[in-house]
């Protein structure tokens, strides 16, 4: 349970009185790299591979999508659809405990990856909503808590949430919370209660809770992504590229995942 430790919160607190300025810096030129974002999901017709390319850091142009690659996962060819996205045949569903091999042929180079579709931890679907007054850095509202269970000592998963409120539109993305779990510091074969950190909802809001299993590579990737998204500071670790499990010099991630969604309405 590592990522719930919001170390970089310090940076904001301690250096709230320090100052920042946008500056001009010269950066070395870089060659374009292939960006791979691929998922094999246990949800029917949810698997895809998206290909794009990097751009120079200060470039104002949009990252170009790649539409002329050959993409294969195990023996299934993924076909180009739109926006750099390649999808398999209709009805495609990932199978738990299966290794998935990705091969991408693009511009005369081959990129490959392997991900094991591990089973998801057990989620007890009895969710609790408790009203809290405003405390510390959390607003007033309903918290969401649930129970989960690891089955063995080397399980990894991550969790995201999104919610809609009668007053706001659905969020397109689910990056308000990203919590990774491993079984290192956690009891297993025992239900563990968990409050989604700092999440506070209003009555009648609908919350979407999404759990995905992952392997160690994806776990490390999401931890690094979460660190990176919190931004750098004098207290941050030195900058480092996101890890990748793609060979051949591409960036990104290929992950096979068991997925469960829970959509719940907060009843007053």
């Amino acid at each position, binding site marked *: 349970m590592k990522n719930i430790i919001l170390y970089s919160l310090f940076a904001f607190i301690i250096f709230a009185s320090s*100052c920042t300025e946008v500056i001009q810096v010269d950066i070395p030129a870089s060659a374009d790299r292939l*960006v791979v974002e691929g998922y094999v999901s246990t949800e029917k017709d949810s698997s895809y591979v998206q290909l794009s390319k990097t751009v120079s850091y200060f470039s104002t142009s949009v990252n170009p999508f790649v539409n002329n690659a050959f993409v294969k996962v195990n023996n299934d060819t993924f076909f180009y659809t739109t926006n750099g996205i390649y999808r398999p045949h209709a009805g495609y569903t990932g199978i738990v405990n299966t290794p998935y091999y990705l091969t991408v042929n693009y511009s005369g180079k081959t990129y490959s990856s392997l991900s094991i579709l591990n089973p998801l931890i057990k989620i007890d679907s009895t969710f609790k909503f408790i009203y809290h007054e405003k405390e510390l850095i959390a607003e007033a509202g309903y918290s969401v808590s649930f129970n989960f269970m690891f089955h063995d000592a080397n399980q990894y998963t991550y969790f995201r949430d999104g919610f809609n409120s009668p007053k706001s539109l659905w969020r397109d993305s689910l990056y308000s919370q990203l919590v990774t779990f491993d079984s290192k510091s956690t009891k297993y074969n025992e239900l563990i*209660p*968990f409050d989604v950190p700092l999440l506070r909802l209003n009555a009648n809001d609908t919350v979407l809770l999404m759990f995905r299993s992952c392997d160690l590579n994806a776990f490390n990737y999401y931890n690094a992504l979460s660190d990176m998204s919190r931004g750098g500071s*004098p207290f941050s670790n030195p900058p480092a590229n996101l890890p990748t499990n793609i060979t051949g010099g591409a960036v990104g991630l290929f992950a096979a995942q068991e997925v469960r969604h829970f959509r719940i309405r907060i009843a007053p």
Partner: protein
Amino acid sequence: MNFKIHILIILLFGTSVVFAQQKREGKHTLSGNIKDAKTGEDLIGASIYVEELKTGTITNTYGFYSLSLPKGNYSIIFSYTGYGLVKKQIDFSEDHKLNIELAEIKRELKEVEVNADKPDNKNVSQTKMSVIKLDIKEVKKIPILLGEVDIVKAIQLLPGIQAAGDGNTLYTVRGGNIDHNLVLLDEAVVYNPSHVVGFFSVFNGDAIKDFEIYKGGIPAEYGGRLASVLDVHLKEGNSKEYTANGGIGILSSRFTFEGPIEKNKSSFIVSARRSYYDLFFPFSKDLKDVTTYFGDLNIKTNFKLGEKDKLYISGYMGRDKIGLSSLLGFGWGNYTATARWNHMFSSKLFSNTSFVFTNYDYNFDLNIAKNLNFTRTNQITDYTLKTDLNYFFSPKSNLKFGGSATYHILDPGKIKPITSESAITPDALPTKYALDYAAYVNHKYNFSSRLSAEYGMRVSIFQNIGSSTVNQYQNGTPNYLDKNYGLNGEILISNIIGSSYYNSGSIYNTNYGLEPRLNITYLVSDESSVKVSYNRTFQYLHLIQTTAASTGQEFWTPTDTYIKPQMADQVALGYFRNFMENAIEFSVEGYYKWMTNTVEIKDGADLQFNNHIETEIVEGKGRSYGLEFFVRKQRGKTTGWLSYTISKSERQAEGVNNGDWYAYRFDRTHYLTFVVSHELSKRVNVSANFIYATGDSYTPAIGSYVVNGLQVPLYGDRNSARVPNYNRLDLSVTLLQKKTEAKPLWLFEKRKFEGSWVFSVFNLYNQHNPYTINFKTNPDTGANEAVKTYLFGIVPSVTYNFKF
């Protein structure tokens, strides 16, 4: 190896020859202590000079001296920088014991025995190079951040020593890492010399008697770190009268009380500091929930147990705490205790035996919710027993030898829930135990009136002790290079394939090192000399730290089965020249340093609560070289120095930048400092310092891409770009009040009240020097930006100091 053993044999043989010669010549010995006439404090490094023979010696760390001369009548001059000298005619037809008290120079002193203080040529003639000693009184004149007198900030203005970030007390020496510096407080290792995430050091200027820093030519008595030794000695306390002094600043205050326990025989000193800047936080919108403070306490006492024995007991306690309401917090503390027993076996053989305790700990608390909270702690504890002996053969020959044994206990991490509802289960990484032994011999010998040398050998042994579980890795290494993955076609992979268990008390891993040390000085004339030095150093404890600021998150880890001891070899050559009858000192030193087995952190390393830390670091190499120019004027109304260093420091490690050499983070090609202090009148003093430095190296973002809906940077090679150059001017004005006499009160018999106001401005022209550069996407515009964080603009402060 045979070659090394031969060196040791020659060294020991040479020493015994000198011993035998000494016996045959039938000399007589003058010995004793040199003290401050006003306070009774021992004076370290005071000079004892024989006029007729143009030779002499100096006092050791305890103010003791011993001088053996052939039968005869000699004029002996006792002197110390800033003090009037004393001249005595001594008949060396028998052994004498003579304690001398030197008076600090005051304009009103006109005693017959006290002559005017004259600058000496010690910097030219001493058989040492790459060592600098600053007078604590000079340090107090230097304008410092928030007016807090700080010896560490002062040494950062010297050549070859550079701050690890704006306003930071952590420092690097001659291209070494932050943890390559041995910091000693009365012989106790201080593992984290920082307060307030590095903005202040743990050293309270009011409690410090003396300090010096070695950045090369390190004597054999010191060991355990690669780059430097900062040796700080606390005051013993005034053994003649009770005095008190202190300072009241905007953000912190300090108070020191000292006096005799038994007049001229034993004394004590108690000195404390406490910050209170958190009192202002409620007025800040951003900081209103922040709690932060530091405090420290120095205590020292000494007892004269007889003519030949003296006991010193000293201790330091310091604590930092930073927190945000009850949500989160962290803190750290250093605790040291030293008991030292001086014994004079004879007028020539002086010994000191010390028992030293050191503890450094930190805690990190997080309390997000009732069922999501924990506290994590980490600590290192040392118990050291050491003996140092000093045999004064003659003014030509001085032998030091001794040994030490340290038991290290390292708790790399414990985690436990704060409340019983917490989902976090208690856990602890296994405690690591190690024994660290060392023995050394160091001989200083004047071959002629012009040629002198100090040479020695240190033998260090480091043993890991069970109980312990040692992982076994694929390919026999915790990191092997996989050529399939990684942005540049290679990545470091770790794969545990098993483990071995070692029982409690069993020694499962031993490392050792032979560390030769050498200093040679050749006096070209009384005003100039050429010096050369070589030293090899080993380091068995390594600081795992990724941030420049000290946050308490960093931790120490020992050399073990996979982490090798770091080793450095350094050669230095210097030319020293004094001008205007030693009033102006000039030196230029060039050095080259090789480092092996340096500890380099892997990209994106996971360092927190990691039970196999060896998988997150890689073995590296380092090299640094440079030229240091130094001009100093220590006497007169205008004092100060100008220092310029041109240098390069690089690292190389498998899996980092494809194994190519890259710039060390604090590699600064140019580093210029200028420190000046001018006495405008008897009561007004103005001081200023200026720093100019090449910007630090950093890792730039060279590209960007989108994954998971987020725009993320693609970073280039490690440390392949430079932040803008650094420059800063600080200024301070000290106004001394007239001394006033008051009636005796309580213990204070002769009450003279002295007060002074110190007005200082840090960063006078409000330069926004970068602390870090981060690459972020502007949430409003969506554009990628390089964002500079700077910590300090102009920072004025005022402190009122008093003494009575």
